[in-house]
Each structure stands twice: as structure tokens, then as C-alpha cells.
């Protein structure tokens, strides 16, 4: 892989994104805010404090995690799939000095860039409402990049194996939604049977939520395990996503 060539792919996506950001930014931004308002304020009125904080403040760090997660997954499922098939962008790019490994790296980097970007938007938004207690929140930026890479890699694997664009429904319904609901964003997992926590431990969102909560509240929860988990997952998934996508694109 040649990082300069991967950057050219990233740059192409960035150029296109600057043309479209008005529509996509609103869509990506509105959804997490809706969750915050509906659950935090609406449901929150009936929920007692969790771990000593009001409900809206409890879920806010998790919304950073989920917003950044969905940014990378939408990009590297629907976005990548459309470029690979309908728009034939991959064909255009691969006819230039860019090779498939550069292309995959560029796609993944772009997915994680969007992850960081949409995470930061939520951080800024919740800071306005004084829901950020610690300057440690700044450490989230590199963390969001690593987790963004993981979500991009998982999505890329999915993109490489789906028979058609409709099949992403399975990915979202059977994998993304359960992960979103059972990763400690909306309630502590210890209230559920232990098996749920055990399963959650094997999902990236659970660890990202832990880190987000620790950095936003500034409470010194032990998050080293979570960081190591994310680093390991990002490293392990990278070659898998590359091999599978290569198999799909290079006939």
C-alpha cells in the first residue's frame, strides 16, 4: 500500500463530499440530536439519575459514539457499494496508478475521517448544553479515528460479501441496531443478564462508549482495556477487509 496514493482516493471523496455536505451533514446530525431530545429530555423526565447524573447527561457520551459509528458504516456500506457498482468509480480509479490496496486504504481512511468528524459535531453540540465535564474529551479525537477505522472495516467486509444493496438491511437490523441498543449507551448493561455484557464485550461500540463516557465525565474509569481492544480489532480487521474487497473487485 502506498499512503500517497491512498490519500488521493481520500481526497477524491473529500472533493465530492464538499459538494454534498449540506444534505448529508443535516441527515447525519439530526438523527443523534433526535435521540438526545427524545430519550434524554422526553424519557429522561421519567427516569431517575443513573450513576449520579441526569439521564440526558448519561446518554450524551454514547451519542458521540453512535453518531461517529453510523457515519463510518453508512459511508463504507452504501457509499462504497454505490462507488463499486452503480457509479463504477472503482473502475475509474483503478485504471490510474492507484492499485486496489491503495483504494481500500483510501476508502477506510475516508470512513474513519467521517467518523471523527461526526463525533466532533456531537461533542461540540453537547458542550453547548454543558454536558461535557472534562478537557479529556480532546483525547476522543484519536480514539474516534481508531474506532472509525473498525466500523469502516466491518462495513467494508459486509460490502465485499453482500449480493446486492438490499442485503445491507440484514447488516443493519441484525448487527448494527442490536449493537446500538445493547452497548451501554442508554442504560448500564449490569441491569441485564450477564450474557448480554459478555456479548457486548465483543462489539466495538461497547468499548467506544466506555471511552467516550470516561473522557466526557473525566472520571478515571479504567479504559486501558477498551483502548487495547479497539487497537487490536482495527489491526485484525484491516487485512480481512482488504482481502475480501480485492476478491470482489478484481475479477
Amino acid at each position, binding site marked *: 500500500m502506498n499512503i500517497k496514493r491512498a490519500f*488521493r482516493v481520500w*481526497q477524491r471523496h473529500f472533493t465530492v463530499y464538499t459538494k454534498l455536505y449540506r444534505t448529508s451533514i443535516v441527515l447525519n446530525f439530526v438523527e443523534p440530536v433526535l435521540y438526545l431530545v427524545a430519550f434524554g429530555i422526553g424519557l429522561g423526565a421519567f427516569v431517575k439519575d443513573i450513576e449520579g447524573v441526569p439521564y440526558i447527561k448519561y446518554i450524551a457520551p454514547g451519542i458521540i459514539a453512535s453518531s461517529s459509528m453510523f457515519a463510518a458504516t453508512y459511508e463504507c456500506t452504501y457509499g462504497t457499494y454505490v462507488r463499486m457498482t452503480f457509479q463504477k468509480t472503482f473502475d475509474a480509479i*483503478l485504471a490510474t*496508478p492507484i492499485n486496489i490496496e491503495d483504494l481500500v486504504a483510501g476508502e477506510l481512511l475516508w470512513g474513519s475521517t467521517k467518523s471523527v468528524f461526526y463525533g466532533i459535531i456531537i461533542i461540540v453540540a453537547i458542550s453547548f448544553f454543558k454536558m461535557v465535564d472534562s478537557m479529556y474529551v480532546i483525547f476522543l479525537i484519536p480514539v474516534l479515528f481508531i474506532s472509525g477505522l473498525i466500523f469502516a472495516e466491518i462495513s467494508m467486509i459486509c460490502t465485499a460479501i453482500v449480493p446486492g444493496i438490499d442485503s445491507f438491511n440484514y447488516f443493519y437490523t441484525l448487527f448494527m441496531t442490536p449493537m446500538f441498543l445493547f452497548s451501554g449507551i442508554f442504560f448500564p448493561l449490569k441491569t441485564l443478564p450477564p450474557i448480554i455484557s459478555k456479548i457486548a464485550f465483543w462489539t466495538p461500540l461497547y468499548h467506544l462508549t466506555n471511552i467516550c463516557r470516561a473522557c466526557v465525565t473525566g472520571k478515571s474509569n479504567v479504559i486501558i482495556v477498551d483502548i487495547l481492544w479497539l487497537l487490536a480489532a482495527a489491526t485484525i480487521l484491516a487485512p480481512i477487509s482488504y482481502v475480501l474487497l480485492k476478491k470482489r473487485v*478484481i*475479477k
Partner: protein
Amino acid sequence: MVIIKARKLTKYFGQICAVDNVDFDIEKGVCFGFLGPNGAGKTTIMRMFYCIVAPTAGHIEIMGMDIKRHASKIKSKIGVMPQDNNLDLELSAFKNLIVYGRYFEIPYKISKRLAYDLLDYVGLTEKAHENIRNLSGGMQRALLLARAIINSPEILILDEPTTGLDPHSRHNVWHKLKDLKEKDTTLILTTHYMEEAEKLCDKVAIMDRGKIIIIDTPKHLMETYGGNLEDVYLKLTGKKLKGEENNNNNEY
């Protein structure tokens, strides 16, 4: 000088044999045409040149380099005008060229000038900053051609460059291709238009079901077998060359 050399080139897609043990040499500076109906294996060979399709067996050398080992370097010296429109639909004609120039590491200052020159060359100056969705089919093909030569390629690969174009746009493309050939660019094209092959090609490879049946100059083929290239094809394969006209842009 031989610029592309293929030996025992074979490609299977699952059980289907798309290219069946073919050999050919392409000389520098010529216009070489692959003729045959849809499904003859033309596009598969083209796509092997720029490494999107990997040969099942055999090998290709381009400019003396093995495509498996020097893909990026080879691709920096070739231009590709694909069969399907794969422009960046969200961007203007100008931006399409700039983005493409970046893949070849052309600095912005140079690619900006190049982009305007190329748009002028293909007659799209007035459309430079227009969204390409507003461009006609012929204009989009012209832009694809401009994009394919932004790196001043030594070899230009044209996969059915004029399919789906009206006669006027088709003549425009032919005119540009002749011009490029005069500048010593090697042209490799696939087509199922006889007139196109007769007008442009110095040499043609006649293909049927993955095999190359004969490689010769159109003139010599017509003298030997009589009639035009269409008749030659019919005599050699027992089939009509021009299959069903298909519009590849509607594949999805």
C-alpha cells in the same frame, strides 16, 4: 517495437472461458482493434491491460514490464476510456479532470492548465463548470476521452469508444483519435462497428468466443476474403459481427 506482448492469455470466470489461450503482439504507434460481438472477450482483454481483471493463466508484458509486478508504473503510462460512463457525477467537467489528474500526481497548477486545454480540445470549454449530469451522452464521452489523455499516455485503451453515439459525435471521436495517433500514441480499441475498424485500425484481431481467429491488416483481410470487414467476419466465423445493440449505460 512491440509495446504489448501477450502469451497464452487465458481467463475463466468460474466455468466460463472468456479468453481462451490467446497470443498477440501490439506494435508501438499503431491503432490495434479487437473485433467481435458482445461476449467475444474483447473487454476482458482490455481490463487485463489495466489490471482490473487478473489472467487465469498466461502473461502480459506492457512496455517490457510484467503487469503483475509493475501495475502502478504501467498504469501511469496508459489512458483508459471505458465502455461505461464512470465520471464523478457530482462534480463539474473541470473538477472531474482535476481529481483524475491527482491520481497521476499531476500538480494542481499543471493539471488546471491541462484541464482547460483538454476541455478546449474536446469542445467542452463552455461546459467546464457545468454539472456533468447536464451534459449530453456525446459530451460525456468526449469528457471521458479528455480524462483518459490527461497523463499524456503512451498507450490509449478505448473500449467501444463510440457505442451509443450519434454519427456526428462518433466522427468527432474518430477525428480526435486520428489526431492522437499522429502524435505517436498507441491506440487499442474494441468495437463492433466495422466502419470504425476500417477507418481507424492498422491491424485488427478478429475474436469469437474468447479466441483470436486471425490478426491482420483490414486491407489485407478484405483483399483475401473479399467484401468489407463485416463479410470477412461472416466468412471466418459463420456469424454476423454486429450482435444485438446493447446500451451498456442501462446495465443497472
